[in-house]
């Protein structure tokens, strides 16, 4: 399975890169999602814009309590970051489920987010943390929340000429614990369903679901219930109630319950 032919550019500045992106020109970051599509000839861009040289787009830093994740940050760097583990442990927990170490050594945080596979962990974890996503194009820069950013399977709000450059994650609620759980057929396989939870019982709750809909879904009713003191099982049932199919609903309820229990035992 060899890719269809394409031209290749490795811009050295963000402006240069932005000038190249468009309908027939795709950004190549980690390649862990894009290259399989190229190999299957399911993606056939005329131009591949290799952004791996834009080192200014990689990096993790804390700024006024906000975590700024450069889009080009490798998933393995996120995994190893002590800064992230200390302040945003949900991300550390979630990234461990992404594929395998060999995938994470190349895959980027921004790449996973921009690809928006419905079974991807990072979009769900970021949605639970109220992350905001910054895109840049020759027309300027804009920042949107997860609800607006993730539209459907493999579909985000990014225009063809836009590049995701940064993700900012507010500090989670101080006393909340977090957990990420998922079910996959085999280790590292695409998950069937999953749940991210950031919970301090009776005080704060953020719950995001993977596999409950076309995009990462928050569960506001369940979140409210937990703040009002509901038991994990009750909140989980609320979170899953939107899912029509019996087994999937039961599965998600179970995953949410176990995520809540793990986050806030």
């Amino acid at each position, binding site marked *: 399975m*060899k890719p269809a032919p394409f031209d290749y550019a490795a811009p050295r500045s963000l402006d240069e890169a932005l000038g190249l992106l468009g309908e027939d020109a795709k950004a190549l970051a980690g390649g862990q999602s894009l290259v399989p599509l190229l190999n299957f000839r399911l993606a056939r861009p005329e131009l591949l814009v290799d952004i791996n040289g834009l080192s200014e787009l990689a990096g993790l830093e804390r700024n006024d309590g906000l975590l700024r994740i450069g889009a080009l940050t490798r998933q393995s760097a996120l995994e190893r970051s002590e800064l992230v583990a200390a302040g945003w442990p949900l991300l550390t927990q979630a990234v461990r489920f992404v594929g395998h170490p060999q995938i994470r050594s190349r895959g980027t945080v921004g790449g996973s987010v921009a690809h928006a596979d419905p079974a991807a962990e990072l979009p769900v974890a970021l949605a639970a943390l109220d992350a905001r996503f910054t895109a840049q194009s020759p027309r300027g820069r804009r920042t949107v929340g997860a609800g607006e950013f993730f539209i459907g399977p493999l579909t985000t709000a990014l225009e063809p000429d836009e590049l995701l450059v940064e993700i900012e994650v507010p500090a989670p609620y101080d006393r909340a614990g977090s957990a990420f759980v998922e079910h996959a*057929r085999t280790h590292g396989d695409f998950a069937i369903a999953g749940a991210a939870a950031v919970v301090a019982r009776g005080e704060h709750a953020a719950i995001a679901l993977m596999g409950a809909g076309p995009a990462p879904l928050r569960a506001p009713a369940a979140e409210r219930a937990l703040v009002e003191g509901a038991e994990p099982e009750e909140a989980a049932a609320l979170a899953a109630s939107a899912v029509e199919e019996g087994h999937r609903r039961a599965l998600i309820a179970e995953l949410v319950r176990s995520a809540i229990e793990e986050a806030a035992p």
Partner: protein
Amino acid sequence: MPPARASEVGSPAGGGLGLVGRPLRRREDERVLSGRSEFLDDLDPPGLVHLAFVRSPFAHARVLSLRPPESAPGLLAVLTARDLERRARPLPIQTPEGAEVADEPHPLLAPGEVRYAGQPVAAVVAESRALAEDAAELVEVEYEELDPVADPAASDLALLRWRQTSGDVDGAFASAAVVAGGRYAMPRLVAAPIETRGALASHDPARGVLTLWCSAQDTHRPLRHLAHVLDLPAERLRIVIPDVGGAFGSKGSLAPEAAVAAIAATDLGRPVKWAEDRFENFVASYQGRGMEAEVELALDADGRMLAVRARIRADLGAYLLPATAIPPHTAAMLMAGCYTIPAADVEVTGVRTNKVPTGPYRGAGRPEAAYFLERAVDDAARALAIDPVELRRRNLIASFPHRSPLGWTYDSGDYRRCLDLALELAGPRPPSEGGRLVGSGVAMYVERAGGSFEAARATLEPDGRVVIRSSTSPHGQGHDTTFAQIAADRLHVDPADVVLEFGDSALVPGGTGTFGGRSLAMGGSAVVRAVDELRERCAQAAARLLGATEGEITWSDGGLSAGDGRTLGLGDVAAAGPLEASARFESGLVFGSGAYAAVVEIERATGRLTVRQLVAVDDAGTIVNPLLAEGQVLGGVVQGLGECLAEEATYDDQAQPTSVSFADYSLLTAAEIPPVAAAFVESPSPLNPLGAKGIGEGGTIGTPAAVANALADALGGRHVDPPFTEAKLWRAIHG
């Protein structure tokens, strides 16, 4: 007959080195570990060009027109069915004994009609694989879509029919105290070796020889098939097998694409390589299993089995490839299993659908038979309120040879011992608690292996080494080590002084093939015969050299001795002139067996299945190398578990394959494997000098049946077919 210890059996009178039965490590490993292995796609001869295929996007369609591009970068040739019209025949069809098969062979390239999505329609040769794929996209094909048949129940044509009735079946059912059974199904599977298929063809016009390097299980079937397809005598063909990255049955028959490569190489005068990619392997490599059966057992009030009735339907796909008809026939022949059932009525129908054809996949009919029968036995136990183990004990065959009502004669076995040992290793069944349903189950199996013939040629070289050319071909099983063990044992030499040559039709003798766990029983026995004859020649030569009579010569670690203590090493004997011996070994089928046990746990809330434990007791007769034999069992068990937990080749209602990558079709990783306890019982076969049967496939035969029985136990008798996905189990529990 009590099982003999391996080191007693298989050594010549007068004792050997005792190598047989020892867990020698493999000498094949070093090359692989250092990166010096050579698989098909590693071959890069000068002038090499590459083959890609235009494949049908539809499951059923007429090909109205086909227009290759005028030109394309690197494009060298385009071949269609029209170009092959008078040059090639479709692949031959093997007809199992007593069966009726339709005349529906697989053409090389689709003539006016395509019958499965992925079927090769045209072949494109270019300077690189990428350029060949580019050019393939430029071939314009006009299709007229026809209605596809995806459901075997809606099939319009039987491709295979076989029926066997023996004993008073109707009478048994009429007088039975209980009739029990059910409907059981195993879906299609993909063999999915990590190395895909491939072939590299090169034509030498000066010598008139076409050489085909082939990622294949043996040289014999590709040779036979290619000779048939191209209507060439075998002397004009040479098949060479490089290192092979697994096959599991899927590289037995010659692939139509490989035959096309041979034709293209002849036309272009350049070596042509077809390196199948993973997508092609998913859509166009023949699939396994795909059978369902209605099974009924008639039993008396004491639980004695009186008769078995089975109707098996196999979803064979669009054509009969050479071995498509074999697994369903095998499944049917084994429907009396390990039990003394006196009467049987078994019918198998293989139906045509618009899918890629099926063929042998590890177990090839035996896993299906074990699954169908063993589930029925458990369902019968439930109906009779008898413990399923006890029900089996009351019916196990205990005396051999045993002739099954379906026609095969089982040579030896100790089914009771297998069952007892499996239960001992399994231990007590843990209780269900809280949110988890626990179940335990056992399954027995009997399987056929060996048969037909294999050959070997053993030569004593001037430097004292022994070179053995064997008709079987390894593809991971370690034959190089095991055959060397056998030979060295009989010749009193170091295995390092025994060289094995396999896999080149110009060098090795003709044989039947490597499949169905036959290599040790048949290939190993041919080696034994050849080596024993070589021994005699050596003894004769030694006698001459020592001025003794042949009867005075004895073998020892130093070599051959005359009665007075003078000894000649094999090197000394060889120096007097090379010696050679050939042997052909032929035998009837041998029958391995086993008992498997499983403990499973289902999480009520989600339907998630965990296999807590698996026990595998296999009786493959004499075990020559326990390290390698156990490796075969463990590998087979994991494939069997894959079938239970995750694997299924799926199609939509338009017969479009929907498992087309490893993202859709999940193979188990090391993290999914439960504790497996494996043990051997050894009931040597009287049918060959090693007493060996076959160990290559037991793991896939026993595992699904045992896990399925454990699952049914956990579900209080409710039946679920594999794969046992969360969704299915959840629905079985929650209705």
